[in-house]
């Protein structure tokens, strides 16, 4: 192993990356912009959702219910309607997400001590948003019931649920999503940097020139891996600062444990990137290859949908996905305050993925050459 040669190659890789003002921009600006945009945009929480109310009752109870709706930060009553026929167009044209239809004798029924009926018509085209909105309404209705009973001296409900959300006390979905974005962004950057590195040289014909030097494939591999990892670590650090400072997500665990995870994750991303690079003949193929890996890697990582909800066969597939492990680490360190001991089962699979993919790309360097 010749360290001087490896350093020379790594240095050359950095120069090649940084001397070109366009590639320099691509490395720095987009990830930070993406972090900011995704961070603010990506949320399951729904706020100020436009809704319509069709109140057929006009009694005290229904008015109180509507004032509760009005007071909720989640909903905004944009339309008051007066007849049944108005419901469908509102939903069809996506003017409102839901219509609250209060039955004619709502207040009477409640006053008599029986239940008042409310029909909710939801736009089910986005099932996720619809069910979240329904949940909010349910919560609101429970609160309405309690308040009504208290005010009218009725001791009704026997079971009172009071929830406490651990790790994410305010149940902000941002706390769940943003640490995941960290994983996604550094995966994209490192994968692209490494996937393009060999393909670019192959396209320019410089890879042959490199192969005829006394450098061994393993030395070329290390020299090529270093820039991707260094760029990834720098980017991760910048993003971490943004997450903690700007989005105020608590970093509760051991930062060393997080960085160990970052390094292993980047190492495996580098291995995959170099593998794609070694197979590709042109940069275009390398980019296609990188995206062919990226999209399923993000979807099958637990980034947005839990792995436990996936069919079993697909769950097995996720074991090959380094992002899967990294997301557990990054969420674990951020929200649960985990340290090395609890994360060990996430570290070693990434190490194995790194070793196998790096070895395979080293082999490909020599055997995939025309």
């Amino acid at each position, binding site marked *: 192993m010749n360290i001087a040669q490896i350093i020379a190659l790594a240095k050359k890789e950095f*120069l090649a990356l940084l001397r070109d003002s366009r590639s320099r921009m691509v490395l720095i600006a987009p990830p930070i912009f993406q972090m900011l945009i995704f961070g603010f945009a990506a949320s399951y929480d729904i706020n100020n959702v436009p809704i319509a109310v069709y109140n057929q009752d006009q009694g005290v109870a229904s008015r109180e219910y509507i004032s509760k709706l009005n007071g909720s930060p989640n909903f905004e009553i944009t339309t008051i309607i007066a007849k049944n026929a108005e419901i469908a167009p509102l939903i069809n044209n996506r003017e409102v997400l839901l219509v609250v239809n209060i039955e004619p004798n709502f207040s009477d029924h409640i006053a008599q001590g029986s239940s008042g009926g409310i029909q909710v018509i939801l736009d089910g085209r986005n099932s996720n948003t619809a069910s979240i909105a329904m949940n909010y309404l349910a919560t609101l209705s429970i609160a309405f019931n309690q308040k009504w009973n208290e005010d009218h001296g009725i001791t009704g409900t026997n079971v009172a649920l009071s929830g406490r959300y651990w790790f994410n006390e305010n149940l902000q979905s941002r706390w769940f999503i943003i640490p995941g974005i960290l994983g996604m962004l550094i995966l994209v950057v490192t994968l692209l940097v490494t996937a393009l590195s060999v393909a670019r040289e192959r396209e320019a014909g*410089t890879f042959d020139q490199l*192969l005829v*030097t006394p450098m061994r494939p393993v030395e070329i591999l290390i020299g090529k891996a270093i820039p991707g990892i260094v760029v990834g670590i720098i980017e991760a650090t910048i993003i971490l600062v943004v997450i903690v400072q700007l989005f105020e997500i608590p970093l509760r665990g051991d930062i060393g444990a997080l960085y160990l995870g970052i390094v292993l994750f980047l190492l495996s991303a580098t291995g995959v990137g170099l593998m794609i690079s070694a197979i590709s003949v042109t940069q275009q193929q390398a980019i296609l290859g990188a995206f062919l890996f990226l999209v399923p890697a993000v979807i099958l990582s637990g980034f947005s949908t839990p792995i436990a909800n996936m069919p079993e066969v697909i769950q097995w597939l996720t074991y090959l996905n380094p992002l899967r492990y990294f997301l557990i680490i990054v969420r674990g360190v951020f929200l649960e305050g985990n340290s090395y001991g609890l994360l060990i089962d996430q570290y070693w699979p990434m190490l194995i993925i790194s070793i196998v993919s790096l070895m395979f790309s080293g082999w490909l360097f020599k055997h995939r050459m025309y």
Partner: protein
Amino acid sequence: MSDAALKLSSVSKLFESHGRVIKALDDVSFEIQAGKVTGLIGPDGAGKTTLMRLISGLLVPASGAIEVVGIDVISDPLAVQSQLGYMPQRFGLYDDLTVQQNLDLYADLQNIAYKDRQPRFDQLMNMTGMSPFTKRLAGNLSGGMKQKLGLACTLLRSPKLLILDEPTVGVDPVSRRELWEIIYQQVSQVGMSVLLSTAYMDEAERCDEVVLLHEGKLLMQGKPKDLSQPLSGRTFHISVEGVRHRTLQQVLSNAPDVLDALIEGEGVRVVMEQVVDAKAIVLPQVLTQETHGTVSIDPVKPRFEDAFIARLKTKSTITQQTTIAPLSVSSSADKAVISVDNLTRTFGEFIAVNKISFNVKKGEVFGLLGANGAGKSTAFRMLCGLLPVSSGKVSVAGLDLRVAAADARRRIGYMAQKFSLYSDLSVTQNLNFFSSAYGLSGKQQKQRLAWAITTFELENYKNTNAGNLPLGYKQRLSFAAALMHEPEILFLDEPTSGVDPLARREFWERTNHLAEMGVTILVTTHFMDEANYCDHLVIMEAGRILAAGTPLDMKNLARNDEQPDPSMEDAFIYLLNSNDQKHQAVIA
């Protein structure tokens, strides 16, 4: 003049690159006559392609006017484009379509009426000799056939003015001759006017007229013969018995009154600075002091190439240490440094290299000649260990580079076919990287870097990105990078492809010098005349070796009463024809 097919009046074109303005064309004016073949000659970067693109209306000049068959290009490019056919250096054939589909596509693009198509196709396919291949995929055609198909596509509408950008580069000599025949046919039968650029000086001589461009300026225009006329009395063929032509060339090119010395046959062809009498030429002392054989100096007829060189060559400043120690003919150690035995490489069904065998001795310049697609590069890549062999044996310095320890590669230098250094890195950074990759460091590395910068005259470009270098300098840089670690064996893959005669001379001067110092050199080329620089060579065609031997051996094969003094190209064509006959005999 009303019969001018093309008229340029003070045309200029500027390009802006990295904040600098480059004058690609500077006040160029000339006319070409209808029904003539005009050659556009000039070194790389002279502005030939820019000029052709301007004429075709693909670029707009900064100033000046261009008229094609009386139509102003700038105001009415579409009208001009319907009158002219332009074949760029790399014609846009679709590799995944058959020959016929390519023709159909271009017929569609050029809006040719359906009823006229079939007769025109037949005519063109007959003329190019491609009728049997209409169902073949364009990607599977040889380089020569691709060019012929490109030409056929350009000729579909029978343009009035045909513009060809280096149509014969990398094409085998036979196809080159055929392409020329087609062009002449168009001129004589249809009265087409042709403007073509070429890097081959012998082709320039075939033109009715040539236009010489240099650094965006028009230097001269005229009949090739007229242009070379002023040089008569300045060109000689010199040979000294017992002195190797390479040594002779090196000594002569450094002699004070010699402008240019070029290896030709067994001697050296020189262009003197002034008109002299053959008897008045005094050879440098080194050549005469020892007991060498007879010196013969014969005046020869000047060629267009001489005019080109005389006009453009500023006497080389490469002051090489003229240590002409090994004047003796002893071909040093007879040990084979490179040996190739029944080497074969297949890609699926296709046999790229078919059982070739040869040996290269130490300190030899060994040439691998052949047209594009003959299998040279494939053989070459196997030698360098870049490509696994299908069968057979390769050994370089006693080792197979593919499996040998990495250190074995320290002994070889490699210069790839196309420019393959890092374009985004500066000259110094490139050299630094490659010297480090070969394990140089510290003082030694600094020394070699300084050596490379001075020897290859890169001082002014030290901090320029390699990608922005002029072509000739790119080639110098590649060569320098391959030599940083002082290799014993040098692999040069098409080092002179696309390089103009000046840069080619300079390159061979350096290569000769290295060979004189004992470096073994294996070089591939499709320039047949470059074979003269080799001690031994093999000619490849369709993956096989057609012939092996010294350049003289090859030429002797083709020598007969009709061709008392065949050129290397004649020898190649002879070999190819006799090979075909053998082939047919076998089939029969």
